[in-house]
């Protein structure tokens, strides 16, 4: 005989429990939906179904019936909903409009080899291309204009530049402060300093960006004397401000959770506080500190407003003193101008999907490490 749960006696209770369970699944649902609906708008790009080539073979309206519905839809650049809602007459007149459009392209432009290129093909998204008017192959992101250039490499470079600057600035500071607060300072200092640094994360990123734009940019330019006032360097440092509290908080937790026994053993052997911290505690807490950095990285990559306010131009350059565009700021700045359903729009969504995937992965890594840390704290220790 086993233990029966006897829920027949209390149906309301059982119902409530099922309801609570269903609501809790919403978190999973949300993650799933986010990925689904962001990727959904970008799918045509992934499958190569968009075509931005300006010069296309003109298909006379009379030959409309020789095309399959899918081909016709693509030729007329319609979304599936729009296509479905139109009747044959409308479609025919659209074809006539298209023919006029194609005829209107000036002759010299028609001879431009770029005009025949489908700039949304993966080749152009990732590899450098020698566009007309340029001397050598370049990576160019310039969605505005007749020939839209969608190379995403400058955006990746920009993101990387700014993020790395931010991390180089933030990690030593945050980890250093974490070591100080957790190992070297007196205990009551921790009670005051830790929440105060966490207050830094309570400042909205718009405000940090504002501060960087109005105060820091000029200040840093005076110190370092570079050309462009608003550049990746300034953006990186401002980004660092926003990331420091995240890294500090987790690194400090990791350092504090190292068992007292280690510290006391080292001190009893005559090590100084610093030696103990550097040689015993930090190595023991390394997984946690590493996780803190990974999470800080994820946060830095995802930050939009700070970089948006400081940097504006998309310049493909490895110099940190040039302006740069990151993936997030590009999406934020250009979505308003992108035609809904058009290739620009879809590429922006694609960038969003890639960003989501990247932070998803970095989150999983950070989390696995933190979980192990928690188990050490609670159980297995």
């Amino acid at each position, binding site marked *: 005989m086993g233990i029966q749960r006897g829920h027949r006696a209390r149906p*309301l209770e059982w119902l409530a429990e099922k309801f*609570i369970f269903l609501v809790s699944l919403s*978190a*999973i649902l*949300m*993650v799933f939906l986010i990925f689904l609906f962001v990727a959904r*708008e970008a799918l045509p790009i992934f499958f190569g179904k968009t075509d931005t080539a300006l010069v296309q073979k003109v298909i006379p309206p009379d030959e409309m019936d020789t095309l399959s519905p899918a081909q016709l839809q693509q030729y007329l650049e319609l979304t599936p909903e729009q296509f479905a809602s139109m009747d044959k007459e409308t479609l025919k007149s659209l074809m006539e409009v298209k023919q006029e459009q194609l005829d209107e392209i000036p002759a010299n432009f028609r001879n431009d080899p770029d005009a025949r290129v489908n700039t949304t093909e993966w080749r152009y998204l990732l590899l450098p291309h020698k566009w007309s008017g340029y001397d050598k192959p370049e990576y160019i992101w310039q969605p505005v204009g007749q020939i839209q250039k969608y190379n995403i490499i400058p955006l990746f470079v920009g993101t990387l530049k700014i993020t790395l600057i931010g991390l180089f600035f933030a990690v030593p500071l945050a980890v250093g402060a974490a070591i100080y607060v957790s190992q070297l300072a007196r205990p009551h200092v921790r009670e005051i300093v830790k929440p105060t640094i966490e207050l830094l994360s309570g400042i909205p990123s*718009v405000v940090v960006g504002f501060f960087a734009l109005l105060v820091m940019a000029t200040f840093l330019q005076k110190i370092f004397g570079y050309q462009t006032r608003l550049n990746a360097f300034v953006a990186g440092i401002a980004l660092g401000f926003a990331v420091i509290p995240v890294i500090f908080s987790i690194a400090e937790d990791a350092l504090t959770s190292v068992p007292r026994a280690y510290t006391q053993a080292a001190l009893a052997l005559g090590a100084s506080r610093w030696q103990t911290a550097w040689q015993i505690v930090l190595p023991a807490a390394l997984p946690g500190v590493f996780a803190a950095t990974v999470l800080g990285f994820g946060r830095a990559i995802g930050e*939009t407003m700070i970089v948006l306010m400081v940097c504006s131009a998309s310049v493909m350059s490895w110099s940190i003193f040039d302006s740069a565009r990151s993936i997030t700021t590009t999406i934020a700045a250009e979505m308003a101008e992108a035609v809904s359903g058009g290739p620009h729009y879809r590429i922006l969504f694609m960038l969003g999907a890639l960003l989501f995937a990247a932070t998803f992965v970095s989150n999983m890594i950070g*989390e696995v490490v933190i979980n192990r840390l928690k188990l050490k704290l609670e159980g297995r220790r």
Partner: protein
Amino acid sequence: MNTITPPEYLPEKPSAQGRHFRAEKFDFWSFCFSGLTGLATLFILGILAVILLNILINGWRGLSWHFISTIPKKDFFDVNTTGVLPMIVGTTIRVFVMTIFVLPVGVITAIYLTEYAPNTSIVTRVIRAAVNNLAGVPSIVFGLFGLGFFINFVGKNLDTLFHNPGAVWGQPALIWAALTLAVMTLPVVIVATEESLKAIPPGLREASLALGATKLETILKVVLPQALPGIMTGGILAVSRAAGEVAPILFTGVAYYMASLPTHLTDQFMDLGYQIFVLSTQSPNIDQTRPILYATVLVLLILTFALNIVAIFIRARVRKKLRALG
């Protein structure tokens, strides 16, 4: 009074050095590195202070009752007619609507995770992983989600359902911005609620169950009332975070200028953060506009920062109370 004579092997007088020992040998490197890390800490605190002070000092003069309560004309920089009322209203309303959605879902999820979920189940682990992932999603991706799901999918379908002639639901609106923010701040509420539920000693639950209460009754009558301050903290933190975020509302409902205050869920709205962003990057004469900008920033800072401090304060008090419970 008898005195006890010390045995012979002890010195008769205490040593002149007394009982003061140096804690450790003076080590140059030790001092150096301690100093460096201490400096790092000071530097970080310094940054915080500089930012806050800079904004406080520069924005203080522009702050006035008139400023807070006026709807500005189209030229935001006319000192006499400018005001931030619609931005404050916009920020407040969207955060309020968000709270209506995020608190119930977040609290219920936290209750499931703490009180009902079997620890070894895969579903539990997936839910937790999902919550952690939500916490790490970049805010601009939430904006895209709001656009791609709420506006283009839910909104458009609602329009079709109601046979609306134009786009009523299928365009940027207050409701969609609020819902997007709700998804974004869900992890904050869940984590804060879970923390407060876990802090309640299991003995209380046992006592209630032993008296013949059902699990649900125990949660509703004993556990939740105890957890209320923690839940409030979570709500306040979520509100503070959402009030300061601009990226998620960029495509989901914010506008640079609206002639009147938002009244329907389908209206667009103005926002403090967005205003700051637009004006900082696009205003022509920065010296002229500086004081007004600073005042706007100060208003936003007071709103979000003050909320943060309140939340931390409540949390500290709750921790003290729970320690007394043992």
